[in-house]
């Protein structure tokens, strides 16, 4: 097997480790760092370094190495953490992530960035600890090709200077550490060298010898057996490592004589250590490392066994088939209920089938659902960076992380949400001093929440900032030539910020203020079949609410009839329906007709005209007007009959055909026939285009040919 086969595993693990690292860095309290967290960050860096070394990702290895050294000082309390250091650490993490991505796409990472970050990190080491890490630069990369050369290079620095490299730093404090015997079973030479190098990073390698089937390394250091195993597991399987504490007062010499001659250097150094207090004689049970491997490792193993990766295509195929099953089932149901002499056992069977089919559909749909945590987890970083840039103090609270949402929606909601969060931070939350003056806590609060509401998911971005200024919005809108009036409802005024090119920021900043964002946000969310609402109170804050359907694959629809044809209207767009009275219909210039509904004049769209439906009711007063809303505007849609509400499975028309004006998608009805889902704004455009051209669009086709009607 080729080593590249393991690349993917490494990339995935490293990605998770980096994510862990970021999370810990963000949670880190600089005043009083939690040593557990520092250790976790250190371990993550170290594990990545190990893997990077194994696979020959030099830049990544060097970066993580220097980073790791700094972290090592930090966890020992030699390096006082400050917020700006954490920022640098985060930057380093980002760079490592970039490097990882570069390696993943089989490119070399950006050399310039790499050098810069190395320099920055070393600078920190120099300034903060007064200790150069320059030695570290070369040491880890010394890619030993033979075991003897590796032992030479490694043993020498350990003897001479404690600062020489990572293990050097460890040495000083690890001098009194436990003596561990690490036994490698069935590990080939190449891996052995790497592992010994690894161990040298963890502690002081007293000796190493043996052959492929059993290779023993004596290690002195403070590192726990768990840590050692966690590091080694990047290269070999847990079963291949045995770690035992070495007993007794005469530790190394007793062990060493039988070992290879190349251990001379190591032996030389033992007398120096002999003066040290004898390592604890405590014997660690041999089983321990196996049972209690490093936490993330066990967690990962558990995750592996309880989940599988499946391509979305496969899942979609299953969803499709289940949809078909449901349709077939309702067809059968119809047939059975039409039967004259109802057989009770047949009916029982049918209702059982119905229940099972629905359950099956629900479970299958849930496969596509993933928790909002996937979206929310990136925000601590966004908030931190943005707040830092703006000089604001902000506390982020996330609620409802486990709320589940369709995968395709999760991917598409991230960008709009990021934009809203940045907006809240930039325009919403005030500067700390101003907040204090206003009697608010210095730290602003931003709440991100997600929860289910009916068949929808409600995502809120709430801040306790300045809120929006109605007067200023109106003034700005007039300035921009938008049509506004002082009597507009608050809700409508807030919606103004979604107008293209509308920005309240006095100056364009790094963060926001170009006025391109909000209309894109709105369009994206509408593209997902959702809507955005804003609630705001001056001085108290703004709450932006995004209402999204749970999935794109299923739509709550209202079926309507025009002539002999059935169409589906998205239920979310339907406001009400009424029977238009003659006196409420007003003809406007030309063919336009408006319908007066409670002091509002709504453009009338007659479906039978727009879609050329034959045998439909043409007298508006005999038809039904459905008041619908699309892209913030309301229309009165004339239909013959309302049939009812139903959930429909959305099918794409463009898969085998093309985009049809006025139609957003299609669905399959209970009888197996296809019904078209209407697109409200598209219909309005179509209706205008038709009226403008003065004749039905279809007649523009020059080869119009008389056709017989289907029988």
């Amino acid at each position: 097997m080729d080593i590249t086969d393991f690349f993917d595993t490494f990339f995935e693990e490293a990605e998770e480790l980096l994510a862990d690292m970021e999370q810990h860095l963000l949670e880190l309290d600089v005043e009083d760092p939690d040593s557990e967290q520092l250790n976790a960050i250190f371990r993550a860096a170290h594990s990545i370094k190990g893997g990077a070394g194994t696979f020959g990702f030099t830049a990544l290895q060097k970066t993580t190495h220097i980073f790791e050294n700094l972290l090592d000082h930090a966890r020992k309390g030699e390096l006082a953490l400050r917020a700006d250091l954490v920022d640098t650490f985060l930057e380093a993490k980002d760079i490592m992530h970039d490097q990882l991505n570069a390696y993943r796409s089989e490119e070399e990472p950006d050399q310039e960035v790499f050098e810069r970050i190395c320099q920055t990190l070393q600078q920190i080491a120099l300034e903060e600890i007064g200790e150069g890490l320059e030695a570290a630069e070369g040491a880890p990369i010394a890619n030993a090709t033979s075991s003897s050369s590796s032992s030479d290079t490694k043993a020498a620095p350990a003897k001479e200077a404690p600062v020489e490299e990572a293990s050097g730093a460890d040495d000083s404090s690890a001098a009194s550490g436990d003596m561990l015997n690490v036994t490698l079973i069935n590990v080939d030479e190449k891996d052995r060298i790497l592992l010994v190098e690894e161990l040298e990073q963890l502690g002081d390698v007293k000796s190493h010898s043996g052959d492929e089937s059993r290779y023993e390394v004596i290690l002195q250091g403070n590192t726990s057996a768990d840590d050692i195993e966690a590091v080694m597991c990047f290269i070999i399987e847990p079963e291949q490592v045995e770690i035992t504490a070495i007993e007794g007062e005469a530790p190394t010499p007793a062990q060493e004589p039988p070992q290879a001659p190349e251990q001379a250097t190591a032996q030389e150094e033992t007398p120096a250590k002999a003066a040290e207090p004898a390592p604890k004689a405590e014997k660690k049970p041999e089983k321990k490392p196996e049972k209690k491997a490093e936490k993330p490792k066990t967690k990962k193993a558990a995750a592996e066994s309880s989940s599988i990766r499946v391509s979305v295509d496969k899942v979609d195929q299953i969803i499709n088939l289940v949809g078909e099953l449901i349709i077939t089932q309702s067809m059968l149901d119809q047939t059975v209920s039409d039967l004259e002499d109802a057989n009770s056992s047949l009916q029982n069977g049918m209702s059982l089938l119905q229940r099972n089919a629905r359950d099956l559909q629900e479970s299958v749909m849930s496969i596509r659902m993933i928790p909002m945590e996937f979206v929310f987890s990136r925000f601590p970083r966004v908030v931190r960076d943005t707040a830092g840039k703006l000089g604001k103090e902000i506390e982020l609270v996330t609620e409802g992380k486990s709320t589940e949402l369709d995968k395709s929606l999760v991917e598409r909601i991230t960008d709009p949400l990021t934009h809203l969060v940045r907006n809240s931070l930039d325009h919403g939350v005030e500067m700390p001093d101003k907040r204090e003056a206003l009697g608010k806590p210095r730290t602003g609060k931003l709440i991100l929440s997600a929860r289910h509401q009916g068949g929808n998911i409600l995502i809120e971005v709430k801040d306790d900032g300045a809120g929006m200024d109605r007067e200023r919005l109106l003034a700005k809108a007039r300035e921009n030539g938008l049509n506004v009036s002082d009597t507009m409802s608050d809700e409508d005024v807030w919606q103004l910020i979604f107008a293209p090119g509308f920005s309240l920021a006095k100056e364009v900043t790094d963060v926001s203020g170009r006025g391109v964002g909000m209309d894109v946000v709105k369009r994206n969310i509408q593209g997902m079949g959702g809507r955005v609402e804003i609630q705001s109170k001056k001085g108290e804050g703004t709450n932006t609410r995004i209402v999204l359907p749970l999935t794109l694959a299923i739509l709550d629809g209202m079926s309507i009839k025009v002539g002999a044809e059935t169409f589906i209207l998205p239920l979310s767009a339907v406001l009400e329906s009424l029977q238009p009275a003659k006196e409420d219909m007003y003809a406007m210039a030309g063919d336009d007709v408006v319908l007066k509904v409670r002091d509002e004049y709504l453009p009338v769209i007659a479906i039978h005209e727009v879609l050329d439906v034959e045998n439909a009711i043409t007298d508006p007063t005999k038809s039904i007007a459905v008041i619908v809303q699309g892209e913030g505007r309301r229309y009165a849609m004339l239909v013959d009959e309302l049939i009812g509400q139903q959930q429909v499975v959305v099918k794409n028309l463009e898969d085998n055909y093309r985009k049809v004006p006025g139609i957003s998608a299609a669905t399959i009805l209970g009888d197996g026939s296809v019904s078209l889902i209407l697109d409200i704004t598209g219909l309005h455009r179509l209706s205008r285009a038709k009226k403008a051209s003065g004749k039905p669009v279809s007649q523009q086709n020059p080869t119009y040919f008389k056709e017989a009607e289907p029988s």
Partner: protein
Amino acid sequence: MSQANNDAVLAAAEEDNCEFLVFSLGDEEYAIDILKVQEIRGYENVTRIANAPDFIKGVTNLRGVIVPIVDLRIKFHLDSVEYGGQTVVIVVNVADRIVGIVVDGVSDVMTLTPDQIKPAPEFGVTLSSDFLSGLGSLEDRMLVLVDIDKLLTSEEMALVDSTSNR
């Protein structure tokens, strides 16, 4: 010529042979490459699409997939276009799309050798020879071999978005 030799010649010829599905539109016989054909079904339950060209009859549900239905009789300007029990839809698979075409009837499957396929003459405004792969001559019959790929993806069929932003 030995028997073995003969077989080899036949086998070689067979490799170049194409199988065609022959269908009728009015009195004319057409044929398409059988490998493009997915299935043949009856004409039923077609949902009209407004503002589409008249030869696009609409869409139908083919086991959960929405498939457009094209009536070639209208496209080819035949005089009598009737829908009855004999009307069939040939479901073809072209350019990663599934399209149903309405024809008057499917007669048989034929194997044509390369020398039976004559180049199509330049003719016709309704059916440009661009969409023909040739004419098949079979004793007293003549088959119009339609290049269904080209025909269905052509702009005038309006089946595919001209801006291919799929």
